[in-house]
């Protein structure tokens, strides 16, 4: 049985089941409220959810039972009497050290917890970075949407911000440096494309078996790094990928040469190309890509899949993949993408999908 946490515009849905026999809605929390992201910390079993009240703002909530009571976490707020207010928390990710959890949000902020997500503090290293006044938001806001710890080393962190780019820290977030070498922001005029930090990174995932390797879905390109994010190379251009635009990307933890993307037509039309839903897979580090379509709608299906709405469970031949669309469908594969089934329909617009 797999538990899939689906954050939607109108609440959190906890799905439980397996792709072969189907999923049920085991619980619904935060009815009527936008759940941006939800995860379950594998170390403690605690669930953490980012919930943005239309009226009262964004917060993180914690529970040991998603069908029961949730407790408001403390400290998710920007400095008081400042000139900015927290818009929302986009992502929550366990750290490496016991009790460490990180949360990223808008405006380009990183929060850290050392007690499993109950209390938080703003990471000042990133908040006070001297380049911040030059940061520009993407269409979705100035969002810190990706947090990638380094396995077994709590001091090494990567985060990504739209539309600023990749940031690396080697001292547990005390100091940060941008790291976008090789990424070409073609949405800028040619004379500005060598900008150091105006990069609209959409999502980044690290290989489980080779941590220095990462894959990125960019706003115009799929990239790979083989040096822990120091440099990036385009691995989508010239391949069969129907477009260089998309939001999420995932990898098979057991295969450092693997990645999966769900391309959209482009920035001007963020729907699946040709009215067909296709998950594209590489098993040769991006040299070639193949569509996976069995069980996915191939006609009149114009879906939008957001960057936090694609996740995996397991690995290798047992790899499971799940993604959700803003039209309310959730699809799952129990055979590493070879075949798919719709595991939920008629949900509110899906913001995030995360296996528990």
């Amino acid at each position, binding site marked *: 049985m797999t538990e899939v946490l689906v954050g939607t515009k109108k609440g959190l849905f906890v799905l439980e089941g397996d792709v072969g026999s189907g999923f049920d809605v085991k619980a619904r929390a935060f009815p009527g409220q936008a759940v941006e992201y939800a995860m379950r910390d594998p170390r403690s079993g605690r669930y953490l959810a980012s919930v943005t009240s239309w*009226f*009262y*703002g964004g917060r993180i909530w914690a529970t040991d039972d998603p069908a029961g009571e949730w407790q408001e976490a403390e400290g998710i*707020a920007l*400095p008081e*009497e400042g*000139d900015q207010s927290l818009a929302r928390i986009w992502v929550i990710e366990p750290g490496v050290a016991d009790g460490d959890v990180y949360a990223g949000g808008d405006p380009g902020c990183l929060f850290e917890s050392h007690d499993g997500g109950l209390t938080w503090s703003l990471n000042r290293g990133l908040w006070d970075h001297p380049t911040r006044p030059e940061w520009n938001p993407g269409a979705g806001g100035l969002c810190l949407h990706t947090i990638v710890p380094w396995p077994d080393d709590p001091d090494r962190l990567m985060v990504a911000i739209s539309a600023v780019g990749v940031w690396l820290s080697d001292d547990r977030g005390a100091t940060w440096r941008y790291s976008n070498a090789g990424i070409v922001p073609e949405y800028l005029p040619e004379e500005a494309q060598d900008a150091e930090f105006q990069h609209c990174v959409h999502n980044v995932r690290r290989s489980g078996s080779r941590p220095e390797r990462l894959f990125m879905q960019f706003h115009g390109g799929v990239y790979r790094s083989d040096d822990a994010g120091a440099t990036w190379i385009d691995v989508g251009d010239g391949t069969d990928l129907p477009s260089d635009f998309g939001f999420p990307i995932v990898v098979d933890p057991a295969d450092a040469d693997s990645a999966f993307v769900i391309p959209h037509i482009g920035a001007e039309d963020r729907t699946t190309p040709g009215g067909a839903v296709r998950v594209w897979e590489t098993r040769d580090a991006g040299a070639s890509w193949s569509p996976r379509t069995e069980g996915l709608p191939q006609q009149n299906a114009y879906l939008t899949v957001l960057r936090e709405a694609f996740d995996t469970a397991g690995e290798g031949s047992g790899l499971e993949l799940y993604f959700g669309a803003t039209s309310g469908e959730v699809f799952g594969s129990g055979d590493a993408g070879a075949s798919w089934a719709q595991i939920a329909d008629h949900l509110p617009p899906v913001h995030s999908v995360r296996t528990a």
Partner: protein
Amino acid sequence: MALVMLRAPLADLAGGREHPVDGATVKEALVALERTCPNISGWVLDERRTIRTHVNVYVNGELAREETVVGDSDRIHVLPAISGG
């Protein structure tokens, strides 16, 4: 003292629907409310100490802002705006 009137979920957070507060302006009254009811901190006033966009505050039935003057016996209603989606 003015009286801040709350509805759910704010009333639940604050432990009651009515709260007498000191303050010469709406902002001062809401800050005073946060001091006496810490659970409500950040729910009405954001980090900039401005009233959240989709929250309306009324003084004696008139829509108010942070700088609206508040007098003794005034009733300050805090309500979600007619908005959402």
